[in-house]
């Protein structure tokens, strides 16, 4: 049902559903114009950066994994990259392949959870995945199966699916045998088939007509679709190393959010995550994945955030292909980890978490004790862009009634798969005693 735009409206959702963590939405319109938008993140700040100070350089791998139960590998990989950067170590060969394999498991699990359980109900007209399962049982079963294979891959390489325990600076505590990986090949083939079905499913959804001129920011590797390493690039000419991140991005605290808002130094907001990765790296997708993307209606660029669900599905297929490639080419390394000796230095690392770039920076003293830490998660980087989307989406859809517009706004937030638990943090705590 639609009706004429009202002069003044308030759209408010006190507790957003189907997002990770706790947040709220507030949109105010006056005389047919949006006058205020707030993605309110009220989950308590976590202070991880503060209590990393004084810890050994080997500890962030396990400590920061605890920031998120959905993307712990991203925290482990960015922590490893940053600390190895400080210590002048590069991990390559089979150990790098195993890191990618572990990360692929996380992409499969995290993206599949979002596609099937959190986002698909929006497109199919259900309040929840539970309601959806009553009418689309087979679809939900397939989603759960695909997610389970992602979990199994995490367990195989990481020791367990939640907060893996087999990762350390320089590599792993134990590496799998060639036989173990080969035994998992059939499961990955099944996952690849399910991923292809997922793309076909989501490509058939109806998408709101909404495009924006975004600044996309993502890693770019010379030959691979990025996940573990590369330079940070944008569609506005940015092209930097991890060590230059602080020269180009700033975070600021806003009263309505316990998550810091990230901006480019010129004040522009930017977009990280699957849509950014795809727009900046579609040419690096393997041929079968690229073909599936084209068949799903993607032509190498996409500025409609509602279609991010298709890109997420394409990335699951990519992760399956990548995992099979690693399994097929795997040669067991001579040792499970490269020796890493502490160096008094500052190191930087970023990798592509499922939701976008995750930046870590650590300063170490000569004894390997952390003197300073900084973590910039994807959701805090997307927060300003989410609010920008809400602003423009509401202004261009004021003809929708209150319920429909509110639902669409929630869906627009879920386009980003926000992980509020990850993003809630402060850099500094100031107590003013008078």
């Amino acid at each position, binding site marked *: 049902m639609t009706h004429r735009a009202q002069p003044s409206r308030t759209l408010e959702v006190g507790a957003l559903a189907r997002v990770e963590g706790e947040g709220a939405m507030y949109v105010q319109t006056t005389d047919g114009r949006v006058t205020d938008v707030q993605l309110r993140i009220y989950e308590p700040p976590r*202070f991880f950066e503060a209590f990393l100070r004084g810890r050994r350089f080997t500890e962030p791998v396990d400590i920061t994994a*605890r920031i998120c139960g959905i993307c712990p590998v991203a925290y482990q990989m960015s922590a490893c990259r940053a600390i190895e950067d400080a210590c002048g170590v590069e991990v390559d060969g089979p150990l790098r392949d195993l890191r990618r394999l572990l990360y692929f498991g996380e992409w499969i699990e995290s993206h599949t959870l979002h596609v099937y359980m959190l986002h698909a109900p929006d497109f199919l007209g259900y309040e929840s995945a539970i309601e959806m399962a009553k009418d689309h049982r087979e679809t*939900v079963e397939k989603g759960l199966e695909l997610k*389970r294979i992602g979990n199994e891959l995490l367990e195989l390489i990481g020791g367990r699916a*939640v907060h893996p325990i087999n990762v350390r600076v320089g590599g792993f505590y134990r590496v799998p045998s060639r036989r173990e990986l080969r035994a998992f090949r059939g499961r990955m083939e099944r996952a690849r088939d399910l991923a292809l079905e997922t793309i076909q499913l989501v490509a058939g959804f109806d998408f709101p007509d909404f495009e924006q001129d975004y600044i996309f920011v993502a890693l770019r590797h010379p030959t691979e679709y990025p996940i573990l390493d590369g330079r940070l690039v944008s569609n506005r000419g940015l092209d930097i190393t991890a060590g230059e991140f602080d020269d180009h991005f700033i975070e600021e605290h806003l009263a309505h959010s316990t998550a810091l808002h990230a901006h480019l130094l010129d004040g522009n907001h930017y977009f990280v995550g699957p849509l950014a990765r795809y727009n900046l790296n579609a040419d690096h997708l393997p041929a079968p994945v690229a073909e599936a993307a084209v068949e799903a209606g993607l032509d190498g660029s996409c500025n409609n955030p509602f279609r991010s669900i298709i890109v997420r599905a394409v990335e699951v297929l990519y992760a399956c292909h990548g995992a099979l490639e690693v399994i097929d080419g795997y040669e067991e390394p001579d040792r499970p980890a490269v020796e890493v000796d502490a160096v008094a230095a500052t190191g930087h690392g970023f990798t592509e978490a499922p939701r976008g770039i995750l930046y870590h920076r650590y300063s170490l003293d000569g004894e390997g004790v952390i003197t300073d830490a900084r973590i910039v998660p994807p959701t805090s980087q997307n927060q300003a862009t989410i609010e920008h989307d809400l602003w423009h989406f509401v202004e261009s859809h004021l003809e929708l009634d209150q319920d429909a517009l509110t639902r669409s706004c929630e869906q627009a937030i879920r386009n980003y798969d926000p992980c509020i638990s990850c993003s809630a943090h402060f850099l500094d705590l100031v107590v003013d005693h008078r």
Partner: protein
Amino acid sequence: MTGRGLTTVVIGVGNRFRRDDGAGPVLVDRLNARLAHSGCCDVRTHELDGEASRIIEAWSGAALAIVVDAARSGDEPGTLRRYDTDGAGGEGLDCAGASVAWGAASTHGLGVSEAVELAGALDRLPQRLIVYAIGGADFSEGTELSPPVGQAVEEVLDLVLVDLAHTMKDS
């Protein structure tokens, strides 16, 4: 094994680094110690973060699943609620209305109550499900349970052991 090759599963849900949210994992620690001491090995235990699909996987094929989770229920800290699909020893558990029963109390976004409802819709429930929800007080950073929650965990441990003993006897 319980019944025709089906297992008994105890699942502790929560984050042991968020104080009272660690009630479920601490219960699993305590239970594992008791089971090891007793020589009983017919019970599988899991520590999970509360994500619904992982819970469903964990109790897949079980004759009895016992889930222990901290809850923001508005009750006094340490208040214990017991739900049982058999309706014994506490409140009955209507799997189709689980989120209505205690969904707002769960500390996880798509968590235990959604797992129960989703499993119900997919015929993936265990034969019998018992849920213990412990009212929490402090979900901030840290590993210590608040005293009332710590005491409630001990009470739940005794109740779970009774549940397990009854199951062994009946099988």
